[in-house]
């Protein structure tokens, strides 16, 4: 396969809004997402048939995550100690550059040329494939969805189903073009084609890379769930395994994993458990016949400690990466994952990306929501996503030089003009005399209401105030009824 050049996932349009505009005009993309998200919503609803059980479990999941975060620094140290005892080498990276440097040095130490990778969103954060390719090392995705997007030089459009934006026909054409195989839309055959390519690569690879779903501090265990077996192959066949994960993925003990795992698989795919649950607790022991000779864990910060520092924003780190928020999001469903332009799309992407890349790089992220609340309602660990979006809007309109900034890129949407408009709005609504005068003129001069009201009339007829306000009508009516006007 041709994977030398780095071609951007989406054309570099100016901003979120222009990418959204383009996506909304793509009927194939719209129908791929709508049908996929509808099916995922149904599956989740079936998997949580008992609402009481679901709510109890979500409360437990939230409590488990909150407990882990409340002692995050301690748990990370315990994790490091126990992993080290198990023979796993632990590395710390504050930035993605540092993380890539660590991976590179491990690769260099082994003179490795080929890397095979299981699905990992943190490796996407690091843009590991490109970092390695730049140094002449092949890094092949082994998750079928990731393999498809890599083959097409794209980025994942969903955190669980990276190629969800493509239908079977599009994958068929891609395989036909890139792999030279006969065109087939049969999904089983397509999977077999991918599998044949990957099987060979598993055997050849010098290094296997994976993500981590839960890093268990008490036992020094890395838990990894997957459905295709590629995770197990990537972490056991090559002689060296490098796991990469975010610092928030730590949980206290194995008992904590039980509710989180149940929430994860049911929220993500509506399944009671994944086909594979890998529990990795160290390299091959002298009396063992298989498994990697070396296991490394890279723990990445990349802005997470910024979210951690604020009590409200810290809840962002509850996330267990199930993707239910995007499956249920009316915005994501319509614009697809690539519109967000960053690694994590959808509601969780909107609240976590600003910590990773700074608000200034994603200024529209907090506004791209009607705050309908669907995401918060389904979040298995009860992240109040709408409240956090609102909070980010507040940070986004602060003066950029406001004291005590809580995040990078604060005030990226600051506008003196808009602030003055809201000040005027507040004055109008605080002083009954002004409000009355306003509503008097708005109702009496209703025929002068403009026919075009900015972006509103793009989708709607122009609004026309009523002939009389409720204030007027109620005063008159209640005077007759004896209510206090």
């Amino acid at each position, binding site marked *: 396969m041709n994977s030398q050049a780095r071609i951007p996932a989406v054309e570099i349009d100016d901003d979120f809004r222009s990418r959204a505009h383009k996506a909304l005009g793509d009927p194939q993309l719209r129908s791929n997402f709508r049908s996929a998200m509808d099916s995922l919503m149904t599956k989740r609803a079936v998997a949580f048939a008992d609402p009481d059980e679901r709510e109890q479990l979500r409360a437990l999941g939230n409590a488990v995550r909150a407990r882990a975060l409340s002692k995050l620094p301690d748990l990370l140290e315990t994790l490091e100690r126990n992993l080290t005892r198990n023979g796993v080498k632990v590395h710390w990276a504050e930035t993605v550059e540092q993380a890539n440097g660590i991976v590179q040095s491990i690769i260099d130490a082994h003179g490795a040329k080929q890397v095979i990778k299981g699905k990992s969103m943190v490796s996407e954060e690091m843009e590991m494939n490109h970092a390695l390719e730049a140094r002449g090392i092949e890094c092949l995705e082994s998750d079928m969805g990731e393999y498809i997007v890599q083959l097409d030089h794209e980025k994942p459009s969903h955190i669980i189903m990276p190629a969800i934006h493509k239908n079977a026909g599009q994958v068929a054409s891609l395989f036909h073009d890139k792999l030279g195989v006969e065109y087939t839309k049969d999904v089983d055959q397509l999977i077999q084609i991918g599998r044949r390519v990957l099987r060979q690569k598993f055997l050849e690879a010098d290094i296997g890379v994976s993500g981590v779903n839960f890093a268990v501090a008490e036992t020094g265990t890395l838990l990894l769930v997957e459905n295709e077996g590629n995770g197990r192959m990537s972490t056991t066949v090559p002689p060296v395994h490098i796991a990469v994960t975010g610092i928030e993925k730590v949980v206290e003990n194995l008992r904590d994993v039980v509710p989180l795992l149940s929430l994860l698989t049911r929220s993500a795919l509506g399944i009671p458990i994944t086909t594979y649950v890998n529990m990795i607790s160290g390299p091959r022991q002298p009396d063992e016949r298989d498994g990697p000779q070396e296991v490394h864990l890279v723990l990445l910060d990349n802005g997470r400690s910024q979210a951690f520092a604020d009590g409200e924003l810290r809840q962002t780190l509850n996330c267990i990466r199930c993707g239910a928020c995007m499956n249920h999001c009316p915005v994501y469903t319509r614009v697809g994952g690539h519109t967000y332009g960053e690694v994590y799309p959808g509601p969780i992407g909107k609240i976590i990306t600003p910590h990773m890349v700074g608000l200034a790089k994603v200024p529209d992220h907090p506004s791209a929501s009607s705050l309908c609340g669907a995401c918060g309602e389904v979040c298995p660990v009860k992240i109040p996503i709408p*409240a956090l979006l609102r909070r980010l809007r507040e940070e986004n309109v602060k003066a950029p030089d406001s004291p005590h900034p809580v995040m990078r890129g604060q005030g990226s949407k600051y506008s003196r003009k808009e602030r003055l408009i809201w000040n005027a709005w507040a004055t109008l609504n605080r002083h009954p005399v002004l409000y009355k005068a306003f509503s008097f003129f708005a109702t009496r001069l209703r025929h002068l209401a403009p026919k075009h009201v900015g972006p509103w009339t793009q*989708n709607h007829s122009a609004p026309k105030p009523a002939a009389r306000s409720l204030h007027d009508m109620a005063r008159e009516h209640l005077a007759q*009824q004896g209510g206090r006007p």
Partner: protein
Amino acid sequence: MSELFYNAVPNATRVAPPIPQPRQYPASKPARVYLFGTCVVDLFYPEAGMDAIRLLEREGIRVDFPQGQSCCGQPAYTSGYTDQARTVARAQLALLAGDQPVVVPSGSCAGMLRQHYADLFKDEPETLEQVQALAERTFELAEFLLHVCKVQLKDNGQPVKVALHTSCSARREMNTHLHGRALLAQLTNVERVEHSHESECCGFGGTFSVRMPDISGAMVADKTHNLKASGAHQVLSADCGCLMNINGALEKQRETLRGQHLATFLWQRSGGGR
């Protein structure tokens, strides 16, 4: 590693609030209530506000409409202008003093009073107490008619098919969809039809509709499509923000279908007429 956390607030971890219990309603009807009309009803759907007053009066309740009221503050709050929202909220708070229930003919504004004022005043302990008391006596209109007035509606109208759209915040913060359904079920000649993706947002979202008009437009296009496909003769909603969005889009599309406020529909069907 520990230097990563040097600026973290100690013990800042938040746990989700407990699973909400079903709301307890007063055993008897109050003698008087406040009507908080909301700004959109005031200027665009005043008849809905009047019909709310009439429905309440028919239940033997005296309605007070403080003339100083304006907006609950939600537009500024959801836009991130928290100080401005607080200023406006404080003015409403002063007008709604005492222990009289506050009835709101709009689910999202009721939700603002009930759920979000506490966030606005979290740093003012004395105001917070007032706000918490206000939350306890704030009701969305349909909820109040159903659970406090225990209204029994008699249907005087011809057979009709209606679709009910509930605003997202009303649904998630106030259970307004359930209250609306229960009230409509009392009307014997009214058939409520489901529409596809009924629980999905209509795309209004306050300032979202003008900040992201393309996405908002795609959402309201789908919503109006589904409403038309439902076979309903009429769309009902207890939230005027959604109504403005849905009706504005239907009018632009030159469709004849329209949305009406639930209060107006209930009043007209049950003998109010006009």
